């Protein structure tokens, strides 16, 4: 048994446990993209001799340095000179860990910048992104620079939003690797790959011989198939790669993709939700804006724009069944914003939030 101090809180753990895992289990969120609770840590295996990215073949260029990890899980350990990667740190008794200092925040943003420099991200930083149907862009950003169709469920997006995105990231230069099809089950768009290598580790986890690998190419880690195609690489089309990919690089094309797999859920960044009580709503300004109600699982159950947010919350306090938390955001164009968010919700869930349509059963 070991005791560690995590952001001032005492936690019990076992010596030798993975520090990142221990923090997550204690409810302390630490961002990461290459880490996955079921898989060995990055990189998981050595580079291959060659990989194929559609018709292009890449040779491994041996390098003395380790392949670049996502670097987002950095934490401060008392006694260490510089921040360490929590995903490859083991718990020691009496360890003192800080996950939320200013220095750590800045370092995470820097490391995130390196990842985003090679990934289309215009929608991530757009102030109008939540609720945008992304079918046309009023900022006139070309499609190749905008986010892909995974936008609403993208793990990279959630992590990037949590960490914060620096302003001075170099312009993204689109690559042009054609799509690689995994039969009718899934598709690879390697232009979107951030080289977290979860796919390769997941492939090895599910199958004895993997079908995908990576090479070191300059300062980049390039993922590809081991032979010219997935089929000739021995791919079993199990969908493990798709299940763990944090971006739109590997996407399912059919509901059957990855049906039989049971990967653990990755811990996602917390969202700021307030307790939906009389006390909780006292602090809400009586201003124009949009309110959202959430159930005990933090799922959205009601979206409403109002000329008076506090009144809207007050009126629904007793009648909104199952509502435990709420958020509010000021916005003078609140009807439009409300409709954008409802549109977004229907896009993701196929119907309106529960309380928005709760009276429908009366008809």
């Amino acid at each position, binding site marked *: 048994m070991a005791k560690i101090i995590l952001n001032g809180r005492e936690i019990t753990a076992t010596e030798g446990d993975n520090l990142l895992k221990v923090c997550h289990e204690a409810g302390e969120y630490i961002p990461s993209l290459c880490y996955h609770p079921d898989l060995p840590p990055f990189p998981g295996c050595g580079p291959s001799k060659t990989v194929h990215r559609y018709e292009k073949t890449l040779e491994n260029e041996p390098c003395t340095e380790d392949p670049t990890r996502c670097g987002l899980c950095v934490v401060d350990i008392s006694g260490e000179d510089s921040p360490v990667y929590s995903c490859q740190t083991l718990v020691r008794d009496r360890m003192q860990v800080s996950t939320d200092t200013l220095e750590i925040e800045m370092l995470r943003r820097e490391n995130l910048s390196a990842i985003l420099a090679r990934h289309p991200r215009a929608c991530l930083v757009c102030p109008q992104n939540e609720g945008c149907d992304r079918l046309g862009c*009023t900022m006139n950003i070309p499609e190749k620079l905008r986010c892909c169709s995974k936008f609403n469920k993208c793990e990279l997006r959630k992590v990037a939003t949590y960490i914060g995105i620096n302003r001075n990231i170099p312009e993204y230069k689109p690559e042009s690797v054609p799509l690689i099809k995994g039969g009718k089950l899934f598709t690879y768009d390697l232009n979107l790959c951030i080289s977290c290598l979860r796919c390769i580790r997941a492939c090895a986890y599910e199958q004895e011989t993997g079908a995908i690998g990576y090479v070191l190419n300059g300062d980049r880690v390039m993922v590809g198939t081991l032979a010219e195609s997935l089929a000739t690489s021995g791919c079993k089309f199990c969908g493990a790669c798709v299940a763990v990919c944090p971006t739109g690089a590997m996407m399912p094309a059919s509901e059957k993709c990855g049906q039989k797999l049971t990967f653990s859920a990755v811990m996602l960044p917390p969202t700021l939700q307030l307790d939906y009580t009389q006390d909780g709503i006292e602090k809400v300004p009586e201003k124009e804006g949009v309110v959202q109600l959430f159930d005990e699982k933090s799922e959205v159950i009601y979206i409403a724009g*109002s000329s008076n947010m506090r009144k809207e919350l007050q009126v629904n306090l007793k009648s909104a069944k199952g509502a435990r938390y709420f958020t509010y955001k000021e916005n003078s164009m609140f*009807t*439009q914003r409300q409709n954008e968010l409802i549109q977004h919700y229907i896009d993701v869930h196929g119907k309106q939030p529960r309380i928005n349509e709760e009276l*429908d059963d009366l008809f």
Partner: protein
Amino acid sequence: MTEEYFRWTESKWVSPDIDWRKGDLITCGCDIGSTSTQFVIMVDGRLYAYSNQRSKGKSEQSAQLALENALTETEGMTLKDMEYIVGTGYGRVSVPFADKDITEISCHARGANFLYGDKVRTILDMGGQDLKVISCNEKGKVLNFIMNDKCAAGAGRGMETMAEIMQISIEKVGDMVAEYEGDLPDVTPECVVFAKTDALRRLKEGWSKASILSAYCAATAWRVADLIGKVNLEEDFCITGGIAKNKGVVKALEKRLSIQAVKPEFDTQIAGAVGAALYGKALAERARG
């Protein structure tokens, strides 16, 4: 007095066939929009009376005026006779006499289902400040919903602005455009601000007002068709909101989509308030037990 070209006719109506005193359950809907407000009175789920007028600066005032206008020919009905009132739209929280408020997408679908029939599956709402497309089922339940992205062009405010610049009464625009058969100048469909500059430039070049307004309506229809293209356009198709009264836009739209819209019998702007009144009826019946 300077003519206000943007000003459309306000309306009110009372059913000649219904004696509300013989009815059992009176429920109402009040839809306070950014540009217009409607008040609808239903007796036992039948449309009895409504009013449609420009919204005032304050939502409470809009609601009050709409209520008063709707009551004018009801022969003595007052607030006390109304068992349940539902507010919807932009200012719904501020309807002082509402028993409940409901977001307008749901109200709109129910209202369109009532006004245009239970075969309606796709509703295009061309409102004061936005365009919405709603897919619904035979009961008027919302299945899918999409709206335009942050712009007034193609919505009521855009049309009001064009009428004002061209100095043609907004009510006459529709007929003028529907009759015009000639060539159209190129216009910028994306932005009302640019549409203004475009329009004035074309006038100087010698294009007629009818041609410019036709181009604007065609551009509106083009923009709307683009939006509808994102959902499954299924018959019956109906158009609600103020611009549904513009024959020019409707004609251009029907042509573009190769579909006929169901023709409305009532003021096309009352769909939201009708839906609200229907929710009121369902809620009142539930309260009665």
